């Protein structure tokens, strides 16, 4: 809401400079986005001048050389000013900008030479002052004005404009007088009488030849007044200046009056050319399914029964509350005007605008649910201006269907409730004063105040808490003490177990040199193809957005792998090809049950490593490139830190992974994620094919489900172990994990330290070397005990794995 300060001053003149006023408004609930200037600056350089002489320019046919008395007195001769306007003539009283003047576009006027003739400024046309579009000629002012009179005293050439951020609960502040009331309450400056207080329109309840019918509940009030002998033409400068300062484009006096009255009262109006209202009838009704009409913006709109329209005998003329139609628009030849001011159902207007993709100043006010009382306020303001500015005379009286809104609600404001909600008391007299200034009607009660809510706050103030807010915001929060509540929940503040484990998992990866990234939850549908997912792949069950910002952000990511590849590619393209990153965040899939409206979301932990596995060192040189095992090592570190046992099985379901270098990650036999090298076709698509790319992704919730929050002690004072290394030769097809698991049945601390394939073990076989420790719970093992255990182990290796101990 742009508020020209001069307009505000019609109604209230606070004793504060504009910055202090802006701060005061901000501290009472009306944010001032910025303080803007409208029109010109350097006002001392704009004066009234008298054209003394006006002669031809020696070198330019279209220019005139004038001498202009700018009121500098005897000491200085009149100024020479070159002027290009055809209507300039000696004897005129004109508006002059002198060197130093700052024009509306911000440019600073300098003394200049035009085709060899000096010019000490310019004689002004309306357009140059931002007052209109008329470039054709200079303005000729009242000859009674003395030369040297400051132009700002004569014409509205400059204003200060407050750009207010009006919160959606306060449509009354979308009118100048409503803001004036706020300023009155916030500063104590006296508030002038309401501009609609006097209404001289004839008091009949009918207009000859006009019939209006309302056929919908969505129009609580519909009022109309008619005028004849209207002369359509430009509005006077003051009105145009006000509209321009407010950010509205002047059109003609009738339309300008509707806009002016809207800006003053907050209530939109619509002017019909009464001679173009077919049959003199207006019907307010729901649109038919598929009914169409052409709105003022020349667009044809298709409507449905939830849209309310105003129709005459020939069909729709307006979309109610949103936009008028072309057919009955006021035009240059209009002489009879029907002024319509109505109240519409806010949510319905909101839906209509959303549905039609059409927003207007009027609709933006109506959707916030205006009070029916405001309709007659706007009629009163508009009627006066119609008479004063267009020569209009009333036809008949006022048609008023619906009348004012419900009787004012009275709410008790208890002193005790004020202090218990705010934590500090407010004097009853102070509350009384504040609420009265805001337009409430206040009466004393035993335990507080009985407060009647004015119509324009009917929707916003309905409960005691709303009144407390009114009192608190005007009273100010500066004096409020700062206290901290007791915690009576019975719980200390804390993270859940899962949240603590998530932090631990993230910290493990950070501790191993990975950078955490924050990817987009949005992604492109093409990601699914880029990941080579077949049609029926579960990851294709994505959550789709109905109104994405763009196609590239139209679905939610079903896996973090795409995000990680994006980040890796971003950095690789900038010369950072060694990437070790992870993300801890949500992934989203459509719920398996179509009746379930929410998504299947889980918190995933995923990492990507490519390029050097570790920073190069001056002694050991560069480490090898990251691969499957680098990614797996990181996942193992996370699992070990969280005390989670994971197993791995060859993967089949992840087409974006290398088929021979990928694994399902299992916990207690159930899949919790995957680890692998990214498929070369996929890395190529992301321009990451310089090195292998290792990734893992796990569902953190499943990974840590049931992990005990508290670890229990296990005996460490047991009998010593006999440590041995075993080399076991098995067929190639036997996974190492099976060998380890088998050995672990007889020994502890079983770890693979070497894998060998080659001539010494024979074709199709491999040797897996293990560290292990034999230990008994109840005694120190002797040589023969160990031999017995080993013999048993060898038999098992042979029978279960087809392997043997390497000699």
């Amino acid at each position: 809401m742009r508020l020209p300060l001069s307009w505000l001053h019609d109604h209230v003149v606070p004793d504060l400079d504009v910055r202090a006023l802006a701060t005061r408004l901000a501290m009472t609930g009306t944010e001032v986005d910025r303080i803007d200037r409208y029109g010109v600056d350097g006002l001392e350089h704009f004066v009234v001048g008298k054209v003394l002489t006006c002669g031809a320019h020696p070198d330019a046919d279209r220019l005139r050389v004038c001498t202009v008395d700018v009121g500098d007195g005897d000491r200085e001769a009149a100024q020479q000013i070159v002027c290009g306007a055809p209507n300039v003539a000696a004897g005129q009283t004109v508006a002059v900008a002198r060197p130093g003047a700052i024009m509306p576009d911000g440019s600073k006027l300098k003394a200049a030479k035009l085709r060899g003739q000096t010019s000490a400024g310019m004689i002004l046309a309306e357009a140059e002052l931002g007052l209109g579009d008329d470039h054709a000629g200079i303005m000729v002012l009242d000859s009674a004005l003395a030369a040297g009179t400051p132009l700002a005293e004569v014409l509205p050439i400059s204003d200060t404009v407050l750009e207010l951020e009006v919160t959606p609960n306060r449509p009354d502040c979308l009118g100048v007088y409503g803001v004036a009331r706020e300023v009155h309450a916030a500063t104590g400056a006296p508030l002038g009488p309401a501009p609609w207080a006097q209404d001289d329109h004839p008091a009949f309840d009918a207009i000859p030849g006009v019939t209006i019918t309302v056929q919908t509940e969505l129009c609580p009030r519909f009022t109309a007044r008619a005028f004849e002998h209207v002369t359509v033409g430009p509005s006077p400068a003051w009105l145009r200046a006000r509209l321009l300062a407010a950010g509205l484009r002047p059109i003609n006096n009738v339309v300008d009056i509707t806009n002016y009255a809207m800006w003053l009262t907050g209530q939109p109006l619509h002017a019909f050319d009464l001679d173009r209202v077919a049959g003199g009838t207006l019907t307010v009704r729901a649109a038919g399914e598929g009914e169409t009409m052409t709105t003022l913006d020349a667009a044809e709109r298709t409507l449905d029964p939830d849209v309310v329209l105003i129709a005459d005998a020939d069909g729709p003329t307006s979309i109610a509350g949103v936009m008028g139609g072309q057919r009955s628009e006021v035009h240059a030849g209009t002489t009879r005007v029907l002024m319509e001011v109505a109240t519409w159902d806010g949510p319905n207007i909101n839906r209509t605008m959303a549905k039609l993709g059409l927003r207007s100043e009027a609709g933006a006010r109506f959707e916030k649910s205006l009070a029916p009382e405001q309709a007659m306020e706007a009629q009163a303001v508009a009627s006066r201006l119609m008479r004063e500015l267009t020569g209009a005379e009333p036809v008949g009286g006022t048609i008023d269907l619906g009348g004012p809104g419900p009787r004012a609600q009275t709410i008790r404001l208890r002193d005790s409730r004020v202090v218990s909600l705010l934590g500090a008391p407010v004097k009853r007299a102070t509350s009384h004063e504040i609420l009265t200034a805001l337009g409430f009607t206040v009466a004393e009660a035993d335990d507080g105040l009985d407060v009647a809510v004015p119509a324009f706050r009917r929707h916003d103030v309905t409960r005691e808490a709303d009144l407390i807010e009114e009192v608190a915001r005007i009273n100010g929060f500066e004096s409020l003490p700062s206290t901290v509540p007791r915690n009576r929940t019975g719980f200390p503040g804390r993270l859940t177990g899962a949240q603590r484990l998530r932090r631990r998992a993230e910290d493990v990866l950070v501790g191993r040199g990975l950078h955490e990234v924050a990817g987009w939850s949005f992604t492109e549908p093409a990601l699914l193809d880029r990941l080579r997912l077949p049609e029926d792949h579960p990851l294709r069950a994505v959550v789709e957005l109905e109104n994405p910002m763009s196609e590239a952000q139209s679905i939610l990511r079903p896996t973090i792998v795409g995000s990680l590849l994006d980040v890796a590619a971003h950095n690789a393209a900038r010369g950072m090809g060694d990437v070790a990153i992870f993300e801890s965040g949500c992934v989203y899939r459509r719920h398996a049950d179509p009746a379930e409206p929410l998504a299947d979301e889980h918190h995933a932990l995923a990492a990507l490593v490519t390029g050097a596995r570790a920073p190069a060192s001056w002694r050991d040189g560069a480490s090898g490139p990251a691969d499957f095992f680098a990614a797996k090592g990181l996942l193992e570190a996370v699992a070990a830190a969280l005390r989670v046992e994971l197993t791995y099985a060859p993967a089949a379901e992840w087409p974006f992974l290398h088929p021979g270098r990928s694994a399902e990650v299992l916990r207690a036999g159930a899949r919790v994620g995957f680890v692998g090298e990214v498929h070369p076709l996929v890395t190529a698509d992301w321009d990451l094919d310089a090195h292998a790319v290792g990734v893992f992704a796990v569902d953190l919730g499943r990974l840590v489900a049931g992990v005990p929050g508290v670890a229990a002690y296990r005996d460490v004072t047991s009998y010593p172990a006999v440590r041995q290394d075993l080399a076991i030769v098995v067929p190639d097809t036997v996974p190492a994990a099976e060998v380890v698991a088998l050995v672990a049945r007889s020994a502890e601390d079983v770890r693979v330290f070497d894998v060998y394939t080659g001539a010494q073990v024979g074709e199709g076989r491999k040797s897996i070397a293990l560290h292990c420790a034999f230990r008994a719970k109840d005694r120190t093992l002797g040589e023969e005990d160990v031999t017995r255990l080993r013999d048993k182990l060898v038999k098992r290796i042979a029978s279960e794995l087809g392997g043997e101990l390497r000699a």
Partner: protein
Amino acid sequence: MSTTLDRIATLHAEATGAIDAAGTVAALEELRVGYLGRKAELPNLLRSVAQLPPEERGAVGKAANQARQALDVLIESRGTALAAAELDARLAVDTVDVTLPGVPAQPVGRLHLLTATRRAIEDVFCGLGFTVVEGPEVELVHYNFDALNHDPAHPARGRSDTFYVRRPRTDSVGAHDPANEVVLRTHTSPMQPRAMAAQAPPIAIIVPGRVYRRDSDATHTPQFHQVEGLAVDEDITLADLKGTLLAFARAIFGDERDVRLRPHFFPFTEPSVEVDVSCFQCAGTGALKPGPTRPARCNLCKGTGWLEILGSGMVDPNVLGMVPTGEYDPERWQGYAFGMGVERIAMLRHSVPDLRLFYDNDLRFLAQFG
């Protein structure tokens, strides 16, 4: 007899001098052999004690023994000293270039600044007694708007502001219940009604998480992060909100900070306030170099001395009344709620100039924080 005793004394003195003078472990070993070895004089004297007349044996034997033991001790200690000195001499020449980096080079990872900031916020509120809870990002309109007292015409519900999720058409009738519509949550506030439905009062929770709005420029990204707070009890006041947020502001922005409340409007709080923290760059003065010349305006707070950090207020009675369990009777229970942007806190605290940097994930950015 005296000659023998004299001889022992002489040997003792002579050996003591020589041992003290020995300069190397090798020389000391020579002395040990020379004075205490099998062929040396003193052990021989001891061995021949038996041949002495009985009245001399005791004195000579004792003297010789004492001399031998004393020399043993002396050699031992001198040996330790010499060995240490020799080790020191060897170590002194065994040098490395201490300015070379450690081996192996240890990579240093970082938390994303948003995570680091979120954790810092969580930790402050845990300390103030809040429990951390989380909720779904794909959310029902009911929780995102209706249960939070949003007017049916509230502009935030619009397709231009909020992401709606495409729903498979399961109903053949086409009856479309707007409350069953699904959005990407526009704030972490939907966890207020969810948490209250799950837990009877009193309650004190914070809700960190990702949220979404249809906006994209230097100061808006369509996804960002919030931390919501909710505290409800019988006697929680607006002054408590101010005190809690003051404690928060000081923990995050420094002990000197102050906060101020500015009235605002939010559908789910009444009264509603925006909270500003005094600017930490200019200490709330709005000026950077106060002096006789015109003061430079603080660029962080734009000369106002205050930085907006969050929106909050007293929980609207309608929000409490709508909790389906009926456990939050607004005549009995009251409290406050607040919601802050993690990005905004991080940008202010770390002077990050552009919101989009958080999501570019350039390693040169990531390495600076966390």
